[in-house]
């Protein structure tokens, strides 16, 4: 399976993401620079990695969401290509309008960098097929702006449609309804603040994140 990772100026989890994808697919992903205007042909998924794209200027993810490559990502997402946004990637996807809501400063104002317990809410999605609904997993988080915000009507809708993929099982950042990861309406775009790509082998302290990539590759027929 051919995959791609978008790289913005200020991305810093792009290499972690590349390692995770290579381990699971057996093939190094294509690293796509933000100024490119097209995604590589024949990819099965694209990842928008964590970091501090454009130094979080204006708002976290705001500048990256308007960079040339994101038009191609939005176009491909509209055609059903799986898109995974982690941390800053989640912020970019909300800023690009591919996911609902917004990510604001953590309610404690502090940068939170530690392992957190999550509950898998929806185990039916392409990204969560290898988890059980209600399962407790542990992923690292490392963010300052992870406080998920949306109006009540939006929150009710995404809850009702089963689009909450992961929920925090402990206080982390003040996110509305403890939402840690959310799917788009078609289920092919997932944004999440915790880092599955940093939890893919025993040396990372566990492999809970590896199943996200394995499940996705299985679902898309890699």
């Amino acid at each position, binding site marked *: 399976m051919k995959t791609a990772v978008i790289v913005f100026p200020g991305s810093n989890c792009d290499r972690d993401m590349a390692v995770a994808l290579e381990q699971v697919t057996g093939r190094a992903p294509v690293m796509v620079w933000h100024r490119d205007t097209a995604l590589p042909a024949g990819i099965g998924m694209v990842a928008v990695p964590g970091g501090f794209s454009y130094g979080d200027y204006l708002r976290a993810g*705001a500048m990256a969401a308007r960079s040339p490559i994101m038009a191609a990502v939005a176009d491909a997402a509209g055609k059903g290509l799986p898109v995974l946004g982690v941390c800053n990637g989640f912020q970019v996807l*909300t800023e690009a309008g591919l996911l609902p809501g*917004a990510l*604001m400063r*953590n309610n404690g*104002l502090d940068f939170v960098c530690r392992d957190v317990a999550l509950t898998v809410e929806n185990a039916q999605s392409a990204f969560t097929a290898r988890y059980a609904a209600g399962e407790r997993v542990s992923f690292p988080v490392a963010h300052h702006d992870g*406080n998920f*915000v949306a109006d009540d009507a939006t929150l009710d809708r995404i809850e009702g449609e089963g689009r909450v993929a992961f929920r925090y099982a402990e206080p982390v950042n003040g996110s509305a309804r403890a939402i840690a990861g959310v799917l788009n309406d078609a289920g092919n775009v997932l944004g999440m603040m915790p880092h599955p790509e940093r939890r893919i082998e025993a040396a990372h302290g566990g492999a809970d994140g590896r199943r996200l990539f394995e499940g996705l590759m299985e679902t898309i027929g890699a």
Partner: protein
Amino acid sequence: MKLRIHVTLKPGVLDPQGKAIEHALAGLGFAGVNGARVGKLIELDVADGTADADIDSMCRQLLANTVIENYRVEKA
């Protein structure tokens, strides 16, 4: 033409930074501060005659995130 774009959080959106400022002011002994909200001021220099609709589009497409923020355009 000089523009001042005021970007503010929508009512009801919690503002942890504003809360911290409110508490800090109380800590400095200023009584009666009932609230603090943090926004942004963006100064733009645009060509004379730039259409209001274009200015509005700039705000909607980039300067403000209308999920959480309101904006107000002030022409200097």
